[in-house]
């Protein structure tokens, strides 16, 4: 059984102009001790997916229409609030894209980190020694993320930190929890590549030492290549391709993935491609059938009719595109 399995998930948002049909039948899974990458278009629903899994989606305006989120075979969407709290305490945690949203502006970084450490541990004493040990662990967690001057940062409030520093606080918070599944939503976008590298190595160690699984969402194909074994490509609310990371990057099959790979700026310096033609879909009235069809150079009549299922394409590689129907 997979550690996490999302089945046919449909989620949307009610907005002034109508109903945004965002997640459109998402199917994906994460195995035990697996590092999985998720790359997708700006606004295709990646953060919505993570929030649904962790049950932190604001409902309303969001609405979960149907689908299942199975953790060890148990549907998170049907759990009681108490079970959900237990799940978040011991089983899974997320690094959110917007760190300001994740941190409480009223408390110092130190207070927040200490609370989390205490909370995630089974039994902690109240003695001075344990207090001091907890503080020391917080500081070392911050130092692990390449935070300058961690002792000083402990007494700072979130607004006193730069964007990259806040992001590192959230990473420290997530890494100091002893969980089985870490959902990392663009954890390193605001950081320089040396610190990014340092943090990704830390994440990697975590998986090795604790046997945890990681989902990493990013726009950087290089990051998923470095860190993950398996990769999902998402477009307009559903997964369009998955397979071993190196395989997908070396020979992308879906026309969207092919367009993405052509758009990646290369160190070889051959210039920047034009990007994928056409515009991102309107989620109020999304295209019928394959949502990519209006932008696809290979679109056929069948593409307009029904969303393509996943077709196998060898070596665990699967692709949701009628070109691979055979």
């Amino acid at each position: 059984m997979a550690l996490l399995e999302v089945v046919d998930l449909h989620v949307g948002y009610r907005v002034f102009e109508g109903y945004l049909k965002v997640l459109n039948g998402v199917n994906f899974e994460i195995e035990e001790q697996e590092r999985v990458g998720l790359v997708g278009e700006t606004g295709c629903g990646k953060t919505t997916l993570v929030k649904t899994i962790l049950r932190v989606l604001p409902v309303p305006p969001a609405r979960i229409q149907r689908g299942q989120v199975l953790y060890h075979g148990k549907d998170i969407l049907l759990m009681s609030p108490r079970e959900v709290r237990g799940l978040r305490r011991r089983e899974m945690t997320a690094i959110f894209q917007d760190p300001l949203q994740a941190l409480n502006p009223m408390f110092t970084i130190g207070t927040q980190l200490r609370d989390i450490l205490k909370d995630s541990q089974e039994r902690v004493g109240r003695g001075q020694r344990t207090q001091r040990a907890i503080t020391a662990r917080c500081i070392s967690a911050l130092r692990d993320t390449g935070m300058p001057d961690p002792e000083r940062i402990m007494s700072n409030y979130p607004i006193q930190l730069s964007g990259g520093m806040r992001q590192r606080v959230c990473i420290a918070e997530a890494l100091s929890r002893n969980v089985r599944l870490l959902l990392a939503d663009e954890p390193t976008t605001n950081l320089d590549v040396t610190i990014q590298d340092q943090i990704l190595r830390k994440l990697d160690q975590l998986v090795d030492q604790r046997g945890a699984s990681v989902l990493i969402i990013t726009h950087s194909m290089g990051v998923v290549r470095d860190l993950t074994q398996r990769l999902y490509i998402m477009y307009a609310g559903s997964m369009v391709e998955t397979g071993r990371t190196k395989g997908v990057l070396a020979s992308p099959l879906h026309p969207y993935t092919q367009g993405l790979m052509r758009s990646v700026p290369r160190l070889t310096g051959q210039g920047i491609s034009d990007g994928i033609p056409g515009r991102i879909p309107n989620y109020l009235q999304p295209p019928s059938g394959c949502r990519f069809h209006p932008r696809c150079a290979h679109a056929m009549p069948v593409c307009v009719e029904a969303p393509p299922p996943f077709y196998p394409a060898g070596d665990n590689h699967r692709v949701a595109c009628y070109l691979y129907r055979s």
Partner: protein
Amino acid sequence: MPGDILSVDNLRKHFPTKEGVVRAVDGVSFSIAPGETFGLVGESGSGKTTTAQCIIGMYPPTSGDIWFKGERINAAFDRRPKHVKGDLRIVFQDPGSSLNPKRTIKQILSVPLQVHRIGSRRGRLARMKALLDMVELPADEYLYKHPQAIGGGERQMVALARALATNPSLVLLDEPTSALDVSVQAKIINLLIRLQKELDLTYLFITHDLSLMRNIATRVAIMYLGKLCEIAPTAEFFESPVHPYTRMLLSSIPVVSDEEEALKPRKVLSTGEIPSPVNVPPGCGFQSRCPEAADVCRRVDPEMVEVSRSHQVRCHRERRPDRAGHAEASVLHEREERLC
């Protein structure tokens, strides 16, 4: 240098705070020639945004000078002459928060036109349509939309249209595409390149994406702890980096093919304490993480020296007598490794 569009001379910006003085920008000098795309890359929190904010006038510098087209423009934004304000514009990373969600795109674009008294009422509408057209958004569809109703990439195009409203010659771009997927990024970059040619624009481009810089920058400058540590023309920068931090940066670029992997210097792992701009250590700012730090590095802050006419580096290794031929040798040895 005469002929430069922008010249920053020993710029310092210090912020007094309760915890001490933050030396966000601490003696930065560079100049940009017309038509360039000058890439500013560096450590998170090294002062790149603060440098841009000083240039645009959001803060007056603590010391140092900013020259724009031969005119000294140290004053804060409100006190700058109007022609400078219109000629020098900025686009921020997060278009979500830099566009007012309560306004329509038409209202957003009309602000700079009104402030700079560009066109009559009728002329302004035509100008706004032309601006949207310039950034490849269909005007009829977009003029009356609100920022939340459009995608992240499109918001960034609106922010760019707003910056271009006053016909600037220098545009500061602070991580304009780092929140976007690579396909949308490619569109915006192509748009920037086309507009640069059509409108004779000069760019100061701040980013963490060195692969992107490889493809679009004319020169690259690296910033660390409030100071520049290396400036070089793009090709030379990637082929023969000299500063240890630059090498660490280049060796950490996540790439997507073995071909690119081979172009990177040998891996330099990032270790050591990250210094804070409140407690700037004596000596070189990079010494706590530098694999090549010597005694002198812990005592004396190195000066910027020329490796070649257009390539400058701030590192003691450059000064050491054993250094002659060292750069050459290490480049050769890396080239050999690449051939393996």
